[in-house]
């Protein structure tokens, strides 16, 4: 009797052992799409990049949970992260490392500091890899003259400055001051705004620059007060500069209309309080008060997970992941040329950034409308700015 029992036990064990590889094979049926992701993960800009990192992780989880169906085979994103430290030399090393270590490389995601994007442009162009760049702000490294394989989501400085300047002029404001950080980004922001301010008939009476990491804004704002300007345009990349700016503004008891670059998002008042920033204007494609389901869902999910409102780098990075998945599905293959053709020609919808639609123009730049938004202390959110009188 016991021998029979033993045989039955062994039989069952063997059956289980034989079945396991079959089960494992089922699970193994999901293949990898290899992605190289290059962005700054250390240095002062970490605070700005953090929403991008979190949004990308969130999006990867969502996409991989569903799976990406390419030509009848299920895939998931296998992402290798590379830190470019917001330093051009390190960015070059990181990019070369990524290009040689991720094999086979199917797509590259980047969101680098401006000088890093410029430094790595020739290397990426040479590699002929399809590159989707979510948040680099500067111009000149995408498109046929830059890199015909690179596609850029974040909007140009030009559109933001144009709409913001038009709005301020329409409000009847005349004289303004520009307070910008002394970096390549700050310089481009300041230059672009002044160009469109002039086009809209605004007079920039005062341009003040300050060194990165400065937190002493009282003398600068005292100058603005002296010059009796109607508005101040502030371009800063770092959270501590923005908070210090608001503090100094409050301490001086100023009542001048504030306007800022797209870096002014909800994380600033979440640190500095909402009373001073109430009414401040910015222009950009991220409107968190938008009622579209994609935006509402993204916002809720992000806030539930991380307890803060995502900064301006979050939404385009989130979209970057989703549209790449959609692009692979449409292309039906992992081939770079096919992918590139799809990205170039498709209109992606249902996204978060801008009006939810991404279509790249011939210069590799995504085009969508930019809105002027206003900080609203009651809703603790930025809303669409009311029409100027």
């Amino acid at each position: 009797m016991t021998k029979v029992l033993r045989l039955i036990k062994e039989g069952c064990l063997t059956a289980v052992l034989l079945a396991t590889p079959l089960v494992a094979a089922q699970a193994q049926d999901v293949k990898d799409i290899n992605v190289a992701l290059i962005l700054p993960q250390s240095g002062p800009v970490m605070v700005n990049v953090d929403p991008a990192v979190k949004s990308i992780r969130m999006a990867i989880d969502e996409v991989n949970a569903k799976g990406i169906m390419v030509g009848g085979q299920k895939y998931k994103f296998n992402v290798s992260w590379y830190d470019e430290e917001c330093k051009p030399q390190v960015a070059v090393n990181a990019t070369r490392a990524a290009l040689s270590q991720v094999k086979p490389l199917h797509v590259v995601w980047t969101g680098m500091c401006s000088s890093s994007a410029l430094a790595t442009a020739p290397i990426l162009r040479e590699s002929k890899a399809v590159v989707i760049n979510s948040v680099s702000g500067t111009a000149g490294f995408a498109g046929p003259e830059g890199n015909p394989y690179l596609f850029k989501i974040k909007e140009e400085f030009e559109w933001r400055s144009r709409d913001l300047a038009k709005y301020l002029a329409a409000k009847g404001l005349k004289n303004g001051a520009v307070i910008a950080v002394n970096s390549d980004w700050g310089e481009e922001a300041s230059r672009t705004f002044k160009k469109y301010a002039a086009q809209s008939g605004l007079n920039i009476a005062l341009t003040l620059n300050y060194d990165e990491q400065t937190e002493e804004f009282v003398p600068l704002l005292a100058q603005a007060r002296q010059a009796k300007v109607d508005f101040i345009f502030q371009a800063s990349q770092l959270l501590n500069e923005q908070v210090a700016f608001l503090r100094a503004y409050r301490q001086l008891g100023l009542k001048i209309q504030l306007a800022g670059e797209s870096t002014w998002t909800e994380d600033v008042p979440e640190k500095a309080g909402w009373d001073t920033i109430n009414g401040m204007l910015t222009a950009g494609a991220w409107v968190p008060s938008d009622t579209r389901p994609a935006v509402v869902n993204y916002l809720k999910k992000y806030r539930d997970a991380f307890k803060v409102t995502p900064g301006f780098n979050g939404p385009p990075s989130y979209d970057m992941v989703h549209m790449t998945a959609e692009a692979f599905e449409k292309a039906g293959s992992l081939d770079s040329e096919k992918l590139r053709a799809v990205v170039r020609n498709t209109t992606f919808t249902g996204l978060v950034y801008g009006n939810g639609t991404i279509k790249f123009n011939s210069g590799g730049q995504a085009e969508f409308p930019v809105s002027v938004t206003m900080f609203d202390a009651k809703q603790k959110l930025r809303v669409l700015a009311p029409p100027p009188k």
Partner: protein
Amino acid sequence: MQSSPTTFYIASAVGLGVAATAPLFISHGFLLYMLSLSVIGAIIATGLNITNGYLGILNLSVGGQVALGSYVCALTALADVPVPVAIVLAVTAGAALAFVTFLLFARLTGFFFGLATIAAAEVVRLMIRNLDTITHGMRGVRGYPPLAQSPAITYWLLLAALAAVLLLVSLLVHSSIGLRWRAIRENANKALSLGLPVRRLQLAGYTLAGAVMSFGGALLALLLQYIEPGIAGLNTLVQTVLMVALGGGGTILGPVIGALAITLIPEFLRVANELRLVIYGMTLIVVVLAVPGGVVGTFNRVMRTRRRLAAIRTTKGATGCPQ
């Protein structure tokens, strides 16, 4: 120091020969690029070694010298000056800056001198950043021709440059000038009382060090194909100082080994970036506390001790002292 310069030269030539074969085995563009970067690091570190290793001067002007070399080379090459001429201009500018800097600070000693050189480097950085009509300021410089079109040829040219610099330094070090430099390093006052023209020797060494570092800067600009004022920052200084300290100051090969280690090892630590910086800091601490003289210095000391022990064993003196 090695016991015989000839064996050293032969060994180095063999080493360089081996290094030169690298492009034949390495198809990875990345690894070849990292080796090229290491070679440039070795050149810059060798420059620093002249003052900090052999002369005993605390020279912290690395950022300023390297950046000046980079910018002079890049801007002139951008203006259609042929690349070799651009390099020569960069080296000349670097030598001139070093010459003037040393004369300005000649009356300072030790730490004060070092601090003054840091201030000078800061001045260079800020000038580069602020004079943006000439230097393109924060936007950086790009679009100038490279050293060579193929990565392999670039690597060989860089290796040749390193060989030339190492040859120059080792010839100097093994000559009477080198002897005098080391005498100054041991005790400047005593050297002075012995009749050595201390200030003049220090000036020559500092100027040469500056020229070599600017040479490295020019080559760096050509390899990177993009430069910005950040090159003059504290980062370049710390990396180079670490290369010399880790590899061993006052030796020929020390800076080369240090440069290889500092440039290549972090690439294997890609996973943990802030951790990498912490490891840098800890390495510096450990090197100073436990391994003064760096890798090569320790190796030399071990070899010297072994030779001394061997000498003691072969003599039959009752006291055990070598005869």
